[in-house]
């Protein structure tokens, strides 16, 4: 319905905005309910998501697997960090291509605008604060693996 915007913000952020003709509750549910996610988070035409795990609670797991029906596919794993129902989701994710990319830290906000919702998705690269938060939520193992790999490259 409305045009999406995508722009860089500061030195480590990428911001996407999009307006939807539905209340925040519906847009939030479409971002957290695996049965709904499978219907739209597919990128270019020709792809499906045969596996979708979305445990919408702090520390809950995320796993999306995409396939194009020609034997090609890739997947993403992640963890939910914070959920404020119908308003805000904070999660981390990494893509496997097939080697994992460093963690992408994503904050998605849903703001009511009349009967519509303005969604703002902010992708943040790992920083000291995120690392501390991850350690606090007991995800140090995954993070350690990422940073260990990074250090291994030095």
């Amino acid at each position: 319905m409305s045009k999406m915007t995508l722009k860089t913000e500061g030195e480590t952020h990428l911001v996407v905005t999009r307006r939807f003709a539905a209340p925040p509750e519906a847009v939030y549910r479409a971002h957290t309910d695996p049965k709904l996610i499978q219907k739209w988070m597919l990128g270019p035409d020709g792809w499906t998501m045969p596996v979708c795990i979305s445990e919408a609670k702090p520390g809950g797991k995320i796993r999306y697997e995409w396939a194009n029906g020609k034997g090609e596919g890739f997947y993403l794993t992640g963890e939910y960090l914070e959920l404020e129902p119908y308003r805000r989701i904070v999660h981390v994710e990494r893509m496997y291509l097939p080697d994992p990319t460093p963690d992408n830290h994503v904050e998605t906000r849903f703001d009511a605008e009349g009967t519509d919702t303005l969604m703002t998705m902010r992708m943040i690269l790992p920083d000291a604060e995120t690392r501390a938060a991850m350690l606090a939520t007991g995800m140090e193992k995954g993070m350690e693996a990422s940073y260990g790999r990074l250090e291994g490259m030095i």
Partner: protein
Amino acid sequence: MNADLDATFSALADPTRRAILARLAKGEATVTELAKPFEMTQPAISQHLKVLEAAGLIVCRIDGTRRPRRLAKAGIEAMDQWLAMLRKGLEKSYDRLDNVLVTMGHQQKGKMQ
């Protein structure tokens, strides 16, 4: 050609390297300047710069003891391509989400009746 394309895409698969390109799009920068916003060590940043240089996405200038990096023309094009790809994928997804939301709205109305 294929090898070049592979090098470009694996260089861009890493969000830190994309962010480095985004930073260099604003002007040249040294390793020290690049390391700061990412809170990474200089050797870690140097390693990313090496990958980007090998893929032909950035170039190094010699200025006394400084070695500022800047975007190569191929880097600008690759970044534009990557952003266009991401934009296209997201736009397609959100157009589908519009339809999912319409269906959800109908179901909600059905329940209330």
